[in-house]
């Protein structure tokens, strides 16, 4: 009996979906818009995250050593820096490397190279390039670097300068921007999702409002609540499925176009590749959201008229 009922509910739902094709079509369109919004929210989040990560990567502290500083002292400081929990990586540029880089940069500038030649010795000091795990941790690293025990070794100054103070405002500003971007992103996500879900919910409620007399007749014939509600929920699930598939198809050319349009701007994230790489995840989110919204809206909307 249970199987027969399930079969009857499924058949009836499919038939309603097909026979009320105009109503189905408009519900699917509205729901597709909702799912597009949800998908766009995901893509925006990914882009934002990638752009922020890219920006974060560009922030660092350089420590310039005196040209007299012995390499062993530099390496010792490097070691103690690496032991700090905030530090992600420390890159060591030796004096030799620095002069080689300098020559490479000015290889077309004969005058500079000549001046260097006449100097007779390497005027450049070694450099440490430090990256922190979080931008907010640079202040702590700078504090460590400004300690006298680090700047002076055996009474001799080894560190010439650190450029943290130059970057300080930029780093702090970036910190603030990223913090508010994250918060704003979250709020926009919630508001947009909520709005589009509400619109879909209302559309489905309208389609069921049209059927309210039908629901009444079904009750008068003695149909149980499940038997009345079932086909409407099946219809809602179908709206969600079809709208989900439409949305997934639309995202294909859209992400392709967005990739070309924003390649120069964001540079780092390729939405098209991201979409293809995470397709199964997107599939479950979009189709799942569609089916859930469709089924739940139908379930709640029919309940209003089940009160005989």
């Amino acid at each position: 009996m249970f199987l027969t009922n399930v079969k009857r509910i499924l058949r009836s739902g499919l038939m309603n979906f097909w026979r009320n094709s105009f109503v189905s079509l408009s519900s699917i369109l509205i729901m597709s818009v909702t799912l597009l919004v949800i998908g766009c929210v995901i893509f925006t989040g990914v882009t934002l995250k990638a752009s922020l990560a890219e920006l974060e990567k560009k922030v660092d502290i350089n420590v310039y050593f005196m040209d007299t500083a012995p390499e062993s002292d530099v390496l010792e400081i490097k070691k103690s820096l690496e032991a700090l929990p905030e530090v992600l990586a420390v890159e060591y540029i030796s004096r030799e490397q620095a002069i080689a880089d300098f020559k490479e940069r000015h290889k077309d500038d004969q005058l500079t190279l000549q001046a260097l030649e006449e100097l007779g010795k390497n005027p450049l000091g070694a450099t440490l390039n430090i990256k922190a795990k979080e931008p907010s941790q640079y202040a702590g690293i700078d504090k460590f670097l400004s300690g006298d025990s680090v700047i002076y070794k055996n009474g001799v100054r080894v560190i010439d300068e650190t450029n943290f103070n130059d970057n300080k405002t930029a780093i702090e500003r970036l910190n603030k921007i990223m913090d508010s971007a994250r918060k704003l992103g979250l709020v926009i996500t919630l508001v947009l999702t909520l709005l589009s879900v509400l619109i879909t919910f209302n559309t489905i409620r309208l389609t069921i409002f049209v059927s309210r007399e039908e629901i009444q007749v079904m009750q008068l014939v003695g149909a149980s609540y499940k038997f009345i509600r079932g086909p409407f929920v099946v219809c809602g699930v179908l709206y969600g499925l079809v709208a989900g598939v439409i949305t997934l198809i639309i995202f294909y050319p859209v992400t392709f176009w967005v990739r070309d349009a924003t390649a120069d701007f964001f540079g780092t994230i390729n939405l098209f590749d991201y979409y293809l790489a995470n397709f199964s995840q997107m599939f479950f989110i979009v189709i799942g959201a569609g089916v859930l919204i469709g089924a739940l809206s139908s379930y709640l909307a029919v309940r209003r008229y089940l009160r005989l």
Partner: protein
Amino acid sequence: MIYFDKVSKIYNANSIALKDVTVTIEHKEFVSIVGHSGAGKTTLLKMILAEERPTKGVVYFDSQNIHKLRPKMMNTIRRKIGTIFQDFKLLPNKTAFENIAFAMEVAGRPDEEISADVPHVLELVGLGNKMESFPGELSGGEKQRVAIARAIVNHPDIIMADEPTGNLDPVNAFEIIHILKKIHDLGTTVILTTHNKGVVDSVGKRVITMEDGKITRDDKHGKYSL
């Protein structure tokens, strides 16, 4: 079988649908309820289906208080009552066949029985050739016959017909009444509300007359008298 015990339905001080109605309808009776519009006929029928709740009093169906039943029990009772309405109340997206099949599916009847009984009952009301038609493609008389077929297909104990001839021409009206009489002859209780004098007089059975929510006459073999 159905017993109204001092039932009142009061919407507000100016709108009183039923006033202290006490009446019994016996098994296998054919009862016509007559009265002007607003006399309370339809409210009386809605009470039996538990579509309306009484403000005062109790409605019994087979000695059970209808308004105290759980939804599941109520559905079982509704399946024992076939209803026919003035505006037919067919499901517009289902064919004549499917409309009747729906009532059987609701009652949990197996598919084989449905595919055997539905054509049979449509033949019975003279619509054997309109099985695949949607309500929108049928005339008023034909729609009402589909509604009757739907009402009788589950072999109900009671047929309740609320102004079944209200939207029909005289010829169709008499055919519908003829079908109802046939159903009654086969042993089904029939409750009919109408304000069609010709219909009531042609039936020649018990007539209850209502006015302003009260029963003013109850004749065993009555005629339309208002």
